[in-house]
């Protein structure tokens, strides 16, 4: 059976240090404004507004909008589910940027082309971890084969994550636990 690769983001382990996205930038030498992976604050729940994070790169959707709208067929899905963008085809129309619900494709103003996370497919093919997975000090990110992997409590969405029904992302989440907090305000 074909693989279905996705990122598993353990929000319980993640402490929002941004190492994943900076390691990605470092290895692929991205332009300053381009971020293939981004660490987002989860704002709406857990009573801890800015202290829980979602580290997101491309969600390598089963039904990618980028691929649907791209007029030059720059996007393709590998057998293992990784969504690749062939930058040599890109003409910089930015349709994918508009269509992706997850702000994934980004415009490189120097090349005037779009680029995005490719799940370090080369590294995966060599049996290595993706850059973000290898770099995360908390070991909060992993890549999983959704066809094989099963664990209780795995979520396909978190507060603030746009509706997964649109494109069927392969990213999965483990939500954070909260300890006891004794605060001196009335909200604690």
């Amino acid at each position, binding site marked *: 059976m074909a693989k279905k690769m996705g990122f598993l983001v353990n929000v319980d382990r993640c402490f929002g240090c941004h190492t994943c996205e900076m390691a990605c930038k470092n290895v692929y030498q991205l332009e300053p404004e381009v971020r293939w992976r*981004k660490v*987002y*604050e*989860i*704002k*709406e729940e857990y009573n801890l507004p800015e202290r829980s994070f*979602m580290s*997101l790169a491309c969600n390598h959707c089963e039904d990618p*909008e980028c*691929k*649907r*709208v*791209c*007029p*030059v*067929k720059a996007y393709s899905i590998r057998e293992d589910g990784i969504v690749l963008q062939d930058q040599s*085809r*890109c*003409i*910089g*129309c*930015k*349709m994918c940027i*508009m*269509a*992706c*619900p*997850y*702000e994934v494709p980004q*415009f490189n103003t120097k*090349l*005037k*082309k779009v680029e995005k996370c490719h799940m370090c497919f080369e590294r995966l093919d060599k049996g290595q971890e993706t850059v973000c997975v290898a770099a995360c000090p908390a070991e909060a990110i992993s890549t999983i084969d959704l066809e094989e992997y099963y664990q209780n409590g795995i979520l396909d969405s978190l*507060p*603030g*994550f*746009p*509706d997964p029904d*649109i*494109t069927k992302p392969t990213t999965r989440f483990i939500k954070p636990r909260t300890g006891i907090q004794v605060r001196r305000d009335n909200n604690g």
Partner: protein
Amino acid sequence: MGEFPLVIFTVLSQLAVGALITVVLLDHYSDKIDKSLGKKLTLIILGATAVGLGFSLLHLGHPFEAYRALANLGSSWLSREVVLFSVFTLLLIAYYFQWQKDSSNKKIVGILASVTGILGVISSGMVYVLPAVPAWNNFSPLVFFILTAVVLGPLFVIAVLKLHGITPPSNLVGIAGILLAGYLLSFILYTSVLFSSAGASGQTAAQMLASSSFWLRIGLTWLLPLGLIFWVIRKQTSEYKYLAGIFLLVFAGEIIGRYLFYDTAVFLKISGF
């Protein structure tokens, strides 16, 4: 004004399609357009289309590779839009020569071009039907793009006819007025639906209403032109300055409206608003 090229492209291409349909219909139902005017109108329409397409290239990172946008007809409305407007342009050229030759196929070519143009406008609309932009993810881009075509087109042709000393058919101004009023009603309906919805759509409506351009647009596209049309019909006048004024007001309103369309669209955002 990041999307300025797209504003120009969409409004001009829609104006062209609407104008062509008007010319084809007038040619069929009246004798107001003679050969020289027919050629002239077709050339202007062709020019507007070409300028629009030219602007659309400026939107691209690599304009000279635009031809490759034909690659994904299977699923990309942008590919389809490119094909349809390319064919539309070719048919316009053919239409011009039909006028030139007084060919009996003129009507067929005109109808073919009109249908292609309408399909082109529809595909322009479909480009923006995106789940990632809730305010667009419905019939509205389609409906409003078609309305732009059918409102601007006749008003434009009316003005050109009058410029050449030809009084447009009396009911044409009325039809344009009715279309414009219909446009206003559907716009009010759309805005109020947006306004009452939550999330990105509600945000879009809020941004629109907060923008002074929005109110300018309401005045330019609808209130002033509708008033003028009413007045023109009431007074039974067809002075050029009024007819041209109506067109220019609506045209300016549409440019602002299209700018707002892009500018106030709120995309789905991670971590909410």
